[in-house]
């Protein structure tokens, strides 16, 4: 291992670099000669220009998602959008019931919001994935009760990439009055999502997962959906749904990033799937490498593997010239085996020795081949050190 080795970035599921086309659009909204005014300051022309740019971006984003502009609420990211939807729906509907359903392997933004609801006296069911990391319609149907008011699930799991079938889940809910919230942070711009399906009440997304800036996201809230309780007050922005000065440059960045991603989605998905399978073939040839999730049921840019016969921290350090995640980035700080993989049935040793590779716009075949070479070298060396 040498500090002079080029770092290969395969952590696009954690965050992505801003696409230069997105950065250009944002720059026009930042400096004195750009559109920098407060979009709420409509008493003067710079403010009205900023407002118009925000609304144009809202339409650009809405068009990319196939929805009406009025259904888009800008937030600071998917975490805030999850909080707004989960807490907002639960609080607004608490007179009708206090049961919420989510997924044990959901992102912390969803899980921690649900745990907060538990502290407020709500009853939460945490479904355990039955099918290689996916929640099935059958599981959801069995969990629904008369007092269920909210179902909050991921579209694509951020650790394993396991893709829930939204049509199947919507069919399972059927005519039940519970709201359905989908965290689509990993899937917007990468997988087609039919928001015309009226069963999806809300959807959270984040710009920095699709080559946009950090610090901005959006909540899609279906027109005609039951009201939600506002969580952030002050200023009345976003039709009173979310107070706070609108960040024109970030909103423009989010919209442009999403539009670009959707425009090139199919070809990029095919390219990333091919690169991912090339990576998997190379890693698997090392032996003793397990794939977490099935290829055909996993979002194209994520590959999660567990490596037998090695310890996780040593594995990650031996590969520190590859930027990837050992489990979820949110959990890397406390060195616990991935709760997602444990919920999928992996023992602590395998869950601890798991790696998430996530590919992106600037990933090349040469990088994949070099990652394979470094992986084989590192795993081989660690296994040689092990008691025989």
């Amino acid at each position, binding site marked *: 291992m040498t500090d002079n080795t080029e770092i290969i970035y395969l952590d696009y599921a*954690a965050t992505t670099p801003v696409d230069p086309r997105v950065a250009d659009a944002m720059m026009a909204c930042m400096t004195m000669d750009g559109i920098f005014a407060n979009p709420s300051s409509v008493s003067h022309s710079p403010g009205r220009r900023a407002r118009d740019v925000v609304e144009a971006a809202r339409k650009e984003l809405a068009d990319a998602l196939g929805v009406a502009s009025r259904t888009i609420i800008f937030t600071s990211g998917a975490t805030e959008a999850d909080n707004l939807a989960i807490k907002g729906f639960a609080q607004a509907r608490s007179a009708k019931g206090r049961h919420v359903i989510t997924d044990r392997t959901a992102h912390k*933004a969803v899980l921690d919001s649900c745990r907060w609801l538990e502290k407020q006296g709500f009853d939460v069911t945490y479904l355990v994935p039955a099918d290689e990391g996916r929640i099935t319609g059958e599981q959801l149907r069995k969990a629904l009760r008369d007092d269920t008011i909210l179902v909050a699930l991921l579209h694509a799991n951020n650790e394993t990439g396991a893709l829930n079938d939204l049509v199947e889940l919507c069919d399972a809910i059927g005519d039940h009055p519970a709201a359905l919230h989908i965290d689509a942070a990993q899937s917007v711009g990468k997988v087609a999502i039919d928001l015309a399906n009226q069963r999806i009440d809300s959807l959270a997304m984040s710009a920095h*997962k699709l080559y946009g800036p950090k610090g901005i996201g959006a909540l899609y809230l279906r027109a005609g959906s039951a009201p939600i309780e506002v969580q952030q007050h002050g200023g009345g922005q976003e039709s009173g749904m979310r107070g706070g000065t609108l960040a024109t440059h970030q909103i423009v960045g989010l919209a442009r990033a999403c539009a670009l991603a959707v425009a090139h989605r199919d070809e990029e998905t095919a390219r990333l799937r091919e690169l991912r399978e090339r990576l998997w073939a190379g890693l698997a040839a090392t032996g003793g490498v397990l794939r977490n999730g099935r290829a055909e049921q996993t979002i194209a840019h994520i590959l999660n593997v567990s490596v037998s016969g090695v310890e996780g921290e040593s594995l990650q350090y031996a590969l520190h010239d590859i930027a990837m995640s050992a489990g979820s980035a949110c959990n890397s700080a406390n060195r616990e085996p991935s709760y997602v993989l444990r919920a999928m049935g992996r023992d602590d040793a395998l869950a601890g020795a798991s790696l998430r590779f996530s590919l992106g716009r600037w990933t090349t075949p040469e990088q994949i081949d070099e990652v394979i070479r470094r992986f084989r070298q590192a795993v081989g060396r660690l296994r040689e050190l092990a008691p025989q």
Partner: protein
Amino acid sequence: MEQSNVFPVYSSEVQRRFAAPRRAGRIERGVQARKVSSSRHAELLLQLVLAGGRVAEARFQAVGCPHLIAAADLVCERLESMPVSALEGFRAAFLEQELPLPADKLDIRILIEDAVRDAARQLN
């Protein structure tokens, strides 16, 4: 939505020994002691060969974090030339200064000390 990865900081000594542990390997003679941690994913196999009442060769094999590998390598280096009589009371306090081990990994020192004492008991 996600925090940046917080990667453990390893001292230059840990990095050096992890990258090239000179005492890693297996010897087909002598005594061996195997220890498995109950609190983390760690396993250590220690092998000692004696000559003239002293440890002539010390080798280890391990599955574990970089601190375990580095500590095992350093301990094996220190064991060589040590009189057998000193093994049963062996303490690896020098790890605190020379590596050092983070506070949440002090069990690694205990694992290694237990392995050395196990090997010593086999020699008696």
